[in-house]
């Protein structure tokens, strides 16, 4: 993956930059030692590494503002970082950048149950937001599988989803307001505790902008009362087509489960070997979860089972108690860990129309043979968000490149059938060069113009999201003017 050549002029001014940052930050918030900056050399896309020039860990919005003002003045690129769990390389540094980590800003600023909101600093982890309101039986709905570690800042940057977003939506649907620092140090407040911010929907465009428009330091999030209960059902089929048809029929029947997870045979086998959840060996497995009071759960599961029976499942397993429910989820929840144990893997997250599912799975299988790399599929079937896991061996020369080429073909296929490159992980560097498969040059240009407004010098996370060739002029023009 190509990254821009570090700017020698910037590197030459490292000492000056350090000195200016020392004037606005306490010593422990500034990391310049080469051994220590290495801790920030990558995120969860570990195939790519590059230590930053400096890393800063501010504790307040004011400190973030001071840092950005100085970096703007000195034309230094800034890469914002939440918890560094991006699977797309969203927080990958360049050698001439400052990593701005918000991890130390993790306070809960306000909880308001009457208005069903929580206001937090964005370094707070996703799960600990729910943790902060759990005693009142509330929760924060978006639940990316990295929720134990990932920060709200990163969730906002990538517009993160999760298994339960079929019912509750993704980050953008649960974000009511932000405090954001612009590249020039200006602090703006957008939205708040009211349901819709006035004016243009700036919140909507900031969420999912991958840290390219500003650094969000505080967020007002919607919290919800927990349902009385939830229960999954596991349904096994002897073909992907039938499982796909079953999902479609359930949705058409008016049942809206909170989650519909789909696993194919390679995935089931790997999970079974790893977690021993007792899954039936079959071609396709659905885990469907519904919520509500006992009577509602029973009613909805009744409908789902009735529909599933019409598709002749090879097995149908209902959970009679919490223990059985946990066993149904066990394999699915350990899917990524199971894959990691077998091999190195690359996790994609293209989204497709649900109707294209059988066709896409068939084609992926064919491509797997062509590329000579195994692939397992696990995904959120209700919303068509796929997670093909391509297995490869990082120590084998050429395997990573082959894996990336295979991944790119899968994502192009997703776009071809009417879907998109990424449903919840973001573009980062990983899918940057595929953007022109999804969008025309003019559509990309329109997005670049949005960044021009927020960050005219193109210093915030500049080498991400868009093909480097399409942003080159913007990235270099300001530096040349220096």
């Amino acid at each position: 993956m190509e990254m821009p050549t570090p700017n020698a002029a910037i590197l030459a001014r490292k000492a000056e930059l350090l000195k200016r940052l020392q004037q606005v930050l306490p010593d422990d918030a500034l990391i310049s030692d080469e051994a220590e900056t290495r801790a920030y050399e990558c995120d969860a896309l570990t195939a790519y590494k590059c230590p930053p020039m400096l890393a800063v860990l501010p504790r307040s919005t004011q400190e973030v503002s001071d840092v950005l003002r100085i970096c703007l003045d000195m034309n230094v690129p800034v890469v914002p970082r939440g918890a560094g769990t991006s699977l797309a390389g969203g927080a990958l540094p360049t050698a001439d950048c400052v990593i701005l980590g918000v991890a130390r800003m993790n306070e809960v600023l306000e909880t308001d149950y009457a208005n069903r909101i929580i206001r937090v600093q964005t370094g707070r982890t996703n799960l600990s937001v729910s943790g902060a309101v759990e005693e009142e039986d509330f929760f924060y709905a978006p639940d990316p599988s990295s929720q134990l570690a990932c920060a709200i800042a990163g969730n906002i940057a990538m517009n993160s989803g999760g298994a339960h977003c079929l019912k509750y939506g993704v980050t953008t649907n649960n974000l009511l307001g932000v405090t954001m620092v612009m590249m020039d140090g200006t602090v703006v407040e957008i939205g708040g505790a009211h349901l819709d911010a006035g004016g243009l929907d700036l919140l909507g465009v900031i969420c999912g902008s991958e840290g390219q428009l500003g650094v969000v330091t505080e967020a007002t999030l919607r919290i919800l009362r927990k349902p009385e209960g939830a229960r999954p059902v596991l349904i096994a089929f002897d073909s992907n087509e039938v499982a796909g048809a079953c999902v479609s029929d359930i949705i058409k029947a008016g049942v809206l489960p909170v989650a519909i997870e789909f696993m194919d045979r390679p995935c089931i086998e790997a999970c079974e070997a790893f977690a021993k959840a007792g899954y039936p060996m079959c071609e396709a497995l659905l885990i469907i979860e519904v919520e509500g009071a006992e009577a509602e759960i029973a009613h909805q599961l009744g409908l789902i089972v009735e529909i599933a029976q019409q598709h002749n499942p090879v097995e149908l397993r209902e959970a009679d108690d919490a223990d059985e429910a946990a066993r149904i989820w066990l394999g699915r929840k350990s899917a990524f860990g199971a894959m990691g144990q077998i091999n190195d893997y690359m996790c994609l997250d293209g989204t497709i129309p649900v109707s294209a599912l059988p066709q896409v799975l068939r084609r992926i299988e064919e491509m797997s043979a062509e590329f000579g790399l195994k692939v397992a599929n696990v995904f959120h079937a209700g919303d068509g968000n796929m997670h093909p896991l391509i297995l490869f061996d990082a120590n084998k020369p050429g395997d990573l490149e082959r894996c990336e080429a295979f991944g790119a073909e899968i994502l192009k296929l997703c776009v071809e059938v009417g879907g998109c490159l990424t449903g919840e992980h973001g573009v980062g560097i990983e899918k940057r060069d595929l953007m022109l498969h999804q969008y025309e040059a003019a559509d990309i240009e329109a997005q670049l113009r949005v960044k021009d407004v927020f960050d005219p010098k193109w210093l915030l996370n500049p080498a991400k999201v868009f093909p480097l060739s399409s942003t080159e002029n913007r990235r270099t023009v300001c530096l040349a003017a220096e």
Partner: protein
Amino acid sequence: MGALPPDPQGYLEEDEMMTPQSEAELADIIAGANGPLCIEGGGTRGIEVPGERLSTGGLSGVTLYEPGALTLVVQAGTPVAEIEALLATENQRLAFEPVDFRSSLGTEGEPTIGGVVATNASGPRRIQGGAARDFLLGVRFVDGRGEVLRNGGRVMKNVTGYDLVKLMAGSHGTLGVLTEVALKVLPRSETEATLAVEEIDLAAGIACLSAALGSPFDVTGAAYDPDAQRAYVRLEGFEASVAYRAKALREQLGRYGAVTEVSGSGELWRGLRDLHDFAGLEGDIWRVSVKPTDAVELIPTLGATRCLCDWGGGLVWALMPEGVDLRQRMTVPGHATLIRSGAGTSVPRHHPEPASLAAISAGLRRQFDPRHILNAGLMG
């Protein structure tokens, strides 16, 4: 024009309205425009900005409807009524309950989906399920340069590049003219029930709605009528489920007042959504967005002729004496939009933004509409 009253706002006769029949034709018109354009869907919002009238009415029809994928793609000028009828055949609906302003504004015409999206017009269910912008999956539009642009797509989850889909929703035609929208639709509920809590004052009414919305019973409507001193709470879903939740909620809300079940729940919420009570009354109509519990402080300070609270108090509709600037009376954070006003009012329709945000908005408008010809001045 001789027979028409003088019209400083640039009204033209019906036959002088431009109604392109294709996206390409629309793009040509915008690219070739040499003055401001007043963009119109069904004309039900009574928007009048200076300029030649340009209607999306010629861009009508369903491009794709896949009930099993909860996906609908339609051209922007498609009447909402047509869409709702189509969705009903599959027992589905637009879950954000688009508002129909005709009765409150005294306008005619057919609301179009493009107009709904451009104004992010969302009804009572917004409090639970989200606004129009939350259901919008993709857009095609023509920007102020006459360029056809696309963002988002037709799938439910999509974080590929910037979300200009949200930016277009609620941009009131000032960044571009929508030509096609993709929407997530949802199953229609099997049944609904509404509980009314009687003889309850404003403070208790809002507290009662907060309690209902903070319950595990998945409330999909929470309104308060200060005149009737009555709070309304709606439940939707499968019959058995609604019955169970109605019973549980009834017990829980009993401490606020006598709880009854309303007959004609559907009609009630349509009336609340479309402000039927404001129809034909004199005065300006304001739409105020605040933190729900702030409605308690807000309403007594307004001196309104009539108020209605939706979204648990977060949305306050106020009928004000003509020409009064409601914003001057607001003591709580939030924003207010002037929905209906007398001719020649000097009060801006949209809430003025703080300088830092106004600069961003103006910057975005410059990028998408450098000649400042699309609904110029409507938002700021």
